[in-house]
Structures are given as C-alpha cells and as structure tokens.
C-alpha cells in the first residue's frame, strides 16, 4: 500500500514511549502515527510477513494490521521501512484495566506466542503496554515484538510475562483487586519478590503460582548477579510449550468476584424512581442526538448504562469509574454483547492517572489523552464537591480541560444521596447551591440547555466550553 508520496519529515516527532527497542520506533507525523522499522530488524520483519504469521494473527484480530508507507524515515541511516499501523482510538494502560481486561490481554499474548512458535518465531517482549483495546478486544500493537525462534532457547519474555500479568492477576484474585495499582508504580511489572511476599500462603499450594511466582522470586534472588552462558542451557520444544501451556492454564484459572456484592445490586442503590431513571436516559439521549459528539468520556459511569446511550449510537465511548467491580461488570457486559464502541476503565477522578515512566512522559496522563468531544458527568458532582471537598470552580476547571462539551447533572443538597454524604461530615458546603453551580461553571462553560429530571429534584445541563 502506498502513502501520499515521498515526504521529508521535518516535523515528525518520536513518541516518548518508544525508545527501548532497537528494532524501531513510533513517530507522529501530523495526526498519524507511523513506525520506523530499523535495518537490524529487517530479517525478523520479513519473516513475520512472508511466513504467513502476520496474516494469521491479523485475521484472528490478535495483532494490529498495518500498511507499508512510502514516507521518508525520520532516521534514514538506520531505517529499513516505515509502516503505518491501524490507529488505536484511545490508549489505555494496565493500571486502568479491570481484572478481566488484564487477564484477556495476558491470554492474547500467550495465544500469539503459541501461534508464533508454529511459524518459527517468538515474542521477544511481553509488556502489558504493548496491548491495547481495539473495538473492545485486546490487540498486540507492537509489530516489532517478534523475532526468529532459535531452537533450544527458552522464552526470553518469560520473566516479563510473570511481572506484567501473572503476578498482578494473582494479587488481584487472591489478595485485593486494587493491587493492580502497583502497575502504576512499577512500570516493568510487579517485582516477583514483592508479589511473593504479598500473596497468601495458600497460593503456594497451586503448582503454577508456586513455581512461576514464589520459586521464581527465590531463584532471582539466589542467582542475582551471577552470569550464566545462556547457550549452555538448552530447552527442548516440548519444555518450552509446557511452560507456555502452564502459564496459560494458570492465567485461565485466576478468577475474581467482588466479595459480598451481587452484580445485580449495582444499579439498585439509587434513590430515584424508574420514571426518573428513564426520564434521565431520555434527556441524555436527546442531548447526544442534538450535538452528535465525535467521542464521549462518561465519568462515574458505574456499569455503563448511560455510556451505552452514546456507544450504541456508534460514538467511541470511554466509560470510567473508580469502582473496579463496576468496571469489571461493564467490561464483561461489553464482551458478552460484542460491543465495538465502549471501553470501560478504572479511574479515580480525584487522582487521575499521571504521566509516568522516563521523564514522567513515557505513559500519558489522562488529561493528555483528551480532550474528549463530550464528557458525561451524571450523579458525580456531589461526590466531588461534598465527598472530596472540591469547590465547583475546581471541578469546572478540570472538566473544561478534558472536554469541549459537557452533559452534567446537578444534584441538590436536599437529595437523599447528598444527605447520605453529609451524614458523616459537617455541612461546611454553604455554597452548594444551583445558583453557585451555574455561576462557577459559567466561568468556563456556556450553558446551552437545562432540563429538570421528572419525578426528582435533579437537573441536567448541556454546556459548551468557552474557556479552558
């Protein structure tokens, strides 16, 4: 496939997450992402394409498809080719994924590794950051992750798989689901000695967790700093497949269910009637039809009922909630219904994902990944203003950075959900009024519409950013 002719790249920018791999790097030219394939990777790239592995993996939706571009490479002295991968609508990170998203990403990489071996190749890295959710399903986005498999060699990405996937999944499943946040601190996956010390003793009774995590951590400590000649140790094909099968069955066996909660309760804990709920849906749907947004972020989405008003209209929708159980339910629903346009993610809006990694810019902050065309913030304001002591102007300021238009619900103080928040704190929120809300938001937004929700005291607003 041919690009728009040879172009000289003066404005191309190497993407800050792309510096470790000598095989190539990602750069941006205008709005399009390209990948330079370096000359050192020529053999592997040709084998990937010519062996049929590329076609097999892209057909099965496991690897991102790309086209070869005739764009001049930004570093021509080391270049072999420039490719243009199919774009990923929204980049998300493993510390924002729920349990099943991390698990599905892990199983995707293992499926790729097994198929690769059939074609004489192997994955040379197994970073969770190489996986992105495209149309709701995990896809490997790093075309340069493959190398020719040398018979007799072990899997070079074994340790990375354990750190990026098996350890955090085991911690989430056996200890606490919130431990996925460790991935935000440890950018190359959870150190195995840490995972081993946090996991309950009973995990030693599981053959795979005993070996892949506990004894693995011990072995790392025992042989730390010792050099071994890798070529002295040969590993037969059956042993290699055995290791991968063992990782796969260990991953499949890991489960997580929220304790003491029934999924079904997740939308029951509301204080308004079915009529108000349906009314609210109608108003949001009418707003969406009126503004036809190009993208939506639903903040405080719970299990995604309102997000689906957008995603069912074909609008790419990110459905964010702080509760890992709600996000898990939301994701499992999206998989069950084979939805293409919704991506549920775990996010604490009071402490959104920062930029992390080298120079703090290897992985983007949430704000950098915006702005969304439209933010939906329903039943959220009182949690921020009263639950988190955030003044209206601070909330409005942040929202004006991450969207161009806003659908927001005002929940008055008299509402029983607000009263519940106030039950455990002094009411210092004298400025929590509809007038103050309109005044403070008016600094950043123009109010375009305001519709009361029938059978409730709540009001829905449609706003447009005037100043961010």
């Amino acid at each position, binding site marked *: 496939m041919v690009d728009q002719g040879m172009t000289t790249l003066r404005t191309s920018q190497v993407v800050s997450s792309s510096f470790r791999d000598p095989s190539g790097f990602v750069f941006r030219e205008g709005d399009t992402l390209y990948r330079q394939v370096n000359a050192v990777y020529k053999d592997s790239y040709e084998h990937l394409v010519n062996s049929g592995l590329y076609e097999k993996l892209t057909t*099965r939706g496991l690897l991102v498809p790309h086209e070869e571009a005739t764009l001049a490479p930004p570093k021509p002295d080391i270049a072999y080719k420039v490719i243009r991968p199919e774009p990923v609508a929204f980049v998300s990170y493993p510390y924002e994924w729920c349990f099943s998203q991390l698990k599905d990403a892990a199983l995707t990489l293992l*499926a790729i590794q097994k198929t690769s071996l059939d074609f004489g190749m192997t994955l040379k890295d197994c970073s969770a950051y190489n996986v992105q959710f495209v149309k709701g399903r995990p896809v490997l986005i790093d075309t340069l992750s493959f190398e020719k498999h040398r018979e007799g060699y*072990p*899997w070079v990405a*074994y*340790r990375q798989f*354990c750190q990026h996937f098996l350890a955090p999944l085991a911690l989430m499943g056996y200890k606490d689901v919130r431990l996925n946040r460790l991935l935000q601190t440890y950018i190359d996956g959870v150190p*195995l000695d840490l995972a081993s010390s946090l996991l309950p003793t009973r995990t030693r009774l599981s053959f795979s967790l005993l*070996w*892949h995590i506990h*004894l*693995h951590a*011990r*072995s*790392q*400590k*025992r*042989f*730390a*700093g*010792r*050099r*071994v000649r*890798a070529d002295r*140790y040969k*590993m*037969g094909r*059956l*042993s*290699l*497949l*055995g*290791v991968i*099968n*063992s990782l796969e069955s260990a991953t499949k066996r890991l489960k997580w269910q929220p304790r003491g909660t029934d999924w079904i309760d997740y939308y029951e804990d509301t204080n308004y009637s079915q009529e108000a709920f349906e009314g609210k849906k109608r108003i949001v749907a009418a707003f969406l039809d009126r503004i036809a947004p190009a993208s939506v972020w639903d903040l405080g989405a719970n299990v995604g009922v309102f997000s689906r008003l957008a995603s069912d209209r074909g609008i790419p929708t990110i459905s964010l909630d702080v509760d890992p159980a709600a996000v898990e339910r939301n994701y499992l629903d999206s998989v069950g219904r084979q939805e293409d346009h919704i991506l549920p993610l775990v996010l604490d809006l009071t402490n959104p994902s920062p930029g992390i990694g080298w120079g703090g810019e290897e992985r983007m902050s949430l704000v950098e990944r915006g702005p969304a065309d439209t933010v939906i913030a329903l039943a959220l304001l009182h949690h921020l203003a009263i639950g988190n002591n955030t003044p209206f102007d601070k909330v409005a300021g942040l929202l004006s950075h991450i969207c161009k238009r806003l659908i927001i619900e005002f929940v008055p103080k008299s509402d029983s959900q607000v009263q519940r928040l106030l039950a455990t704190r002094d009411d210092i929120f004298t400025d929590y009024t509809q007038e103050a809300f309109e005044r403070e938001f008016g600094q950043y937004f123009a109010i375009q519409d305001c519709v009361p929700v029938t059978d409730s005291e709540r009001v829905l607003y449609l706003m447009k950013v005037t100043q961010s």
Partner: protein
Amino acid sequence: MYLDPGTGSLIIQLAIGALVGGLVAAKVSWVRVAGFFRRLFGGRSRHDDAED
C-alpha cells in the same frame, strides 16, 4: 542494590520446562495413541483445529 533478575528467571524457566515438558510429551503421545486406535477401529480421525 540492583541485581539483574534475568539469570534466576532463566534457571526457573528451565526447571519448570523440565517438569512440565513431560506432560506435553505425554499429551502428544496420548493423542497419537488414541488416533491410532481410532483409525484401527475404523472411527474418523478428529481434527482438533477449533482455535483457528
């Protein structure tokens, strides 16, 4: 102190490989043996290709 964990990971992988490699071999042999008997008794051979 930073110590490269690569060596220990390599060694544990070899150990696990030695342990579980036998299982894969047994499975492969079992499939072959079962296939042999199935053919012997005139049953159709089964194509376990559901993944593709």
